[in-house]
């Protein structure tokens, strides 16, 4: 899937991945790729500004650890973030269901 198509949905996808538990940036991107069967193929570097923006908005929080001598930043959903995720997921499900119904076309029933 092209990056442009993904842009508007990346926040929700990132929140969905982090709803499972705290992860560092590479693991978030890896999970996105794995859970989408490699359909979501973004330049990995473009996901970090999304993480930073969500943190600024109070939806995510982060902590630094040391891993193999490197500084590693781990992200997690905040309480507010969990609420945002649940609301966004519900809105997306309603939207997707409606779009699917339209694309399926009219359902004729036998008289």
């Amino acid at each position: 899937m092209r990056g442009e198509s993904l842009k508007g949905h990346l926040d929700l996808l990132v929140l969905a991945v982090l709803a499972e538990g705290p992860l560092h940036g590479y693991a978030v991107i890896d999970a996105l790729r794995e859970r989408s069967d490699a359909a979501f193929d973004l330049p990995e570097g473009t996901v970090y500004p999304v993480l930073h923006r969500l943190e600024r908005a109070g939806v995510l929080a982060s902590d630094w650890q040391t891993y193999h001598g490197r500084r590693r930043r781990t992200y997690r959903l905040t309480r507010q973030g969990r609420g945002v995720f649940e609301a966004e997921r519900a809105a997306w499900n309603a939207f997707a269901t409606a779009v699917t119904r339209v694309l399926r076309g009219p359902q004729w029933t036998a008289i």
Partner: protein
Amino acid sequence: MDRDLIQEYVTALRDRLGWRADVDDVADEVADHLHEHADRLVRGGLDPREAQRRTLACFGDLGLVARTFAEASSGDLAVPTRTTRLAGVAGIAAGGAWLGAAVAAIGGGATDLVRPWSPATYQIWSVVLAVATALTTLTVAGALVRIGRLRTAVGRVTVGVGVLLSLAMTVVGYAVTYLSVPLGLAVLVALRGRPAEARAMVRSLRGLAVWVVGGAAVVLFDEIVPIGPVDSYGDHPVAWLVPFLACALVSASVLAVAGVRMRAERAVDLGDDGSTPFSPAAA
């Protein structure tokens, strides 16, 4: 392996994002990501150099990544540019203009408490006020560019208020302390929640909200609890001259500080032409 491509990429990215206060954190985070990815590829049997090439290709072209990092929450660019540096010059000039307005007010432009008032001295004062307000508006517009908010609704309203105010000063300059209240409020709202990396650049401009206090002080001491002598118009010149002078001096200092800071920032060249040596195609 003769070249450490990851190190070169991180160094180049750090150079392009040098305007961010958290550039060290960004560089460390990106380096951790790249090493993690390359290590996995090496463990999978890939040659280390090829692993680095593939890792950088997956991470994205340097220009694209730098530009994405430069986007503010508004979706606009929030980086120092030649425009924001020019706005810094306007800020320094605005500081001088407000000092000039304070001097002109005492020198007979606003009152005859110190020197005799005349229509000519008043005209000079109102022109200086108009220039000071116009330069202030330019500085605020530059600060809004710096934090990526000029094209938001609140950004446009703030600049619109500044433009109208600049025009109004030439006609009703005597009401400057009242008139500047909306600009002070608009600046306060527009700069609220600014990106951390631009905090130092625009923090001082919040001081323009002093006009709200100044306007309230004039109402209080000229209308409700009058202080000082009464002039031939029945006004209390001390009651509004002192708040005006205080507001003008505070404005002069906050604009000069913001101007110096914006002027000192190096204009960013994001170089997003896709032709960097780290573009996926080249890697």
